[in-house]
Structure formats: structure tokens, C-alpha cells
């Protein structure tokens, strides 16, 4: 899409995902913004806390509710150089979930001979708070 970043500056964008998928549209429409953001060559991170961790849970099957399962789209993020998906450990714990319950999202690291690496980084609440301090723009839906 060419250089969409006319100003030339690079900012740190954090997408804060706190809501479960399907009950509300925020998870889906947040992901749509992230995909668009890829074209702007900014520094993009995604944070999954609270019920937001359910957005990337394995085995989503929406057949019965008549809605589209958009979770496979998370697999595409790596191809757009979006590979910093921070998941809060305390949020997983509370909900009886572990990292194994999440989708195995990966990206190919161009700086390391295209080695396949995990995009998901499970962090503590304290680390998540530090991450937030490090951002220029925080988008919540």
C-alpha cells in the first residue's frame, strides 16, 4: 500500500483487548483496525487482559450462533509483522486457562533466518502495566 505514514514518524500503538469475542463486536472490529494499522508501519502491540484472553482461545466454533468465526485471522497477523501479542497471566489463571489453551500463533523472524517464533508472550500484570507506560497511543474498544 506504499508509504501511508506521511509524517514519517513511528509511534507505539497498543491495542487493549478486554472483552470476550462474539457477545459484542469490539473484538472483531479491533482486529480489523489492527489489520489496517499494518499498512502504516507503526510499532504495534496487542494486549489481551480480562475476558479479552478469550479472543485467542483455541477451538472456537461459531456454527451454532450463526456468526463468523474470526479467530483464524489472528494467524495472519504474523505476515503483517504484527507479532507482539501480550497475554496477561493473571487473567488466564482466574479463568482456569493456560497458554496451552490459546491458539499457537507464530511469525517468521526475518532477522533470524526466517525462523518461526511464537507471537504470544504471556506476561505478568506488573509487566503489562509497564508495557502500557511505554506507548504513544492506546486504543480500546
Amino acid at each position: 500500500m506504499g508509504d501511508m505514514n506521511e509524517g514519517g514518524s513511528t509511534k507505539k500503538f497498543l491495542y487493549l483487548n478486554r472483552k470476550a469475542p462474539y457477545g459484542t463486536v469490539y473484538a472483531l472490529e479491533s482486529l480489523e483496525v489492527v489489520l489496517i494499522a499494518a499498512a502504516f508501519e507503526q510499532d504495534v502491540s496487542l494486549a489481551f487482559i480480562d475476558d479479552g484472553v478469550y479472543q485467542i482461545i483455541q477451538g472456537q466454533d461459531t456454527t451454532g450462533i450463526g456468526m463468523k468465526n474470526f479467530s483464524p485471522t489472528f494467524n495472519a497477523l504474523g505476515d503483517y509483522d504484527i507479532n507482539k501479542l501480550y497475554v496477561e497471566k493473571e487473567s488466564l489463571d482466574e479463568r482456569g486457562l493456560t497458554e496451552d489453551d490459546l491458539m499457537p500463533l507464530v511469525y517468521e523472524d526475518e532477522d533470524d533466518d526466517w525462523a518461526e517464533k511464537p507471537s504470544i508472550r504471556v506476561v505478568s500484570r506488573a509487566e503489562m502495566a509497564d508495557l502500557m507506560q511505554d506507548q504513544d497511543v492506546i486504543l480500546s474498544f
Partner: protein
Amino acid sequence: MKFGILVNEGPYQHQASDSAYQFARAALEKGHEVTRVFFYHDGVYNGTSYSVPPLDDRQVTKQWSELAKEHDVDLVLCVAACQRRGMMDDGEAERHGKGANNVAEGFRISGLGQLIETGIQSDRLVTFGD
């Protein structure tokens, strides 16, 4: 048994309309009657004829219109909610001298009294919202 249904949220933003639709389908399949679906608050947006969702997404308004046609379900949009939120039939457009009919097939605009009437005349009123 006669079911009345109340939908408090618009399409897409919340699952309320989807759940209500699935409930209505299931009730009809079991031989129950769905006398009326009353759309209140943002629920009135379910009746917009101007919606063009992506082809791979569900067509919420169309689903309701088809249900109404197949099973003679009365789909009522609250008039006061419609006025605040920009939903108009021919009568409303003419009365206010602006806008145009954007109410989809099978829906009609009427008063809140229709909600109370549904509560009185149906055996169960089931509410879906945020």
C-alpha cells in the same frame, strides 16, 4: 405457547439480536407461536433497510424479514426510539419533512403500547439486551 420477544440492542454491536433470532427460530420449530418481536432502544436499528453487511457476515435485518414472512411474526420498532435514532417509515418522513423510508420489509413502526400488549397477550416475554 405464545412467546413475545423484546430486543434492546442493535445488530452487530451486541449479540442480543442474534440470540433473539435463534430463540425465535427454535420456538417456532417446536410448534410455539411468536406473536411479536418488539425492538426498543438501539434495537430499532435491526430494522434498517440501508444495511449492506459483508457477504461473509450474517444478514441480520434480512433474517428477521424472512422470519416475519415465513411465520407471520409481527416485528415492531418503537416509534420514540426510531425518532431519536433516525429510523423512518413513509409516514414519519412526511410528518417531519425530512429523510426517507429506511424501514426494511416485515418491520413496522408503532408505539410502546405494543410492548405492554405483548406482555399481556403472550404467555412468556423473553428479553435480549446488553
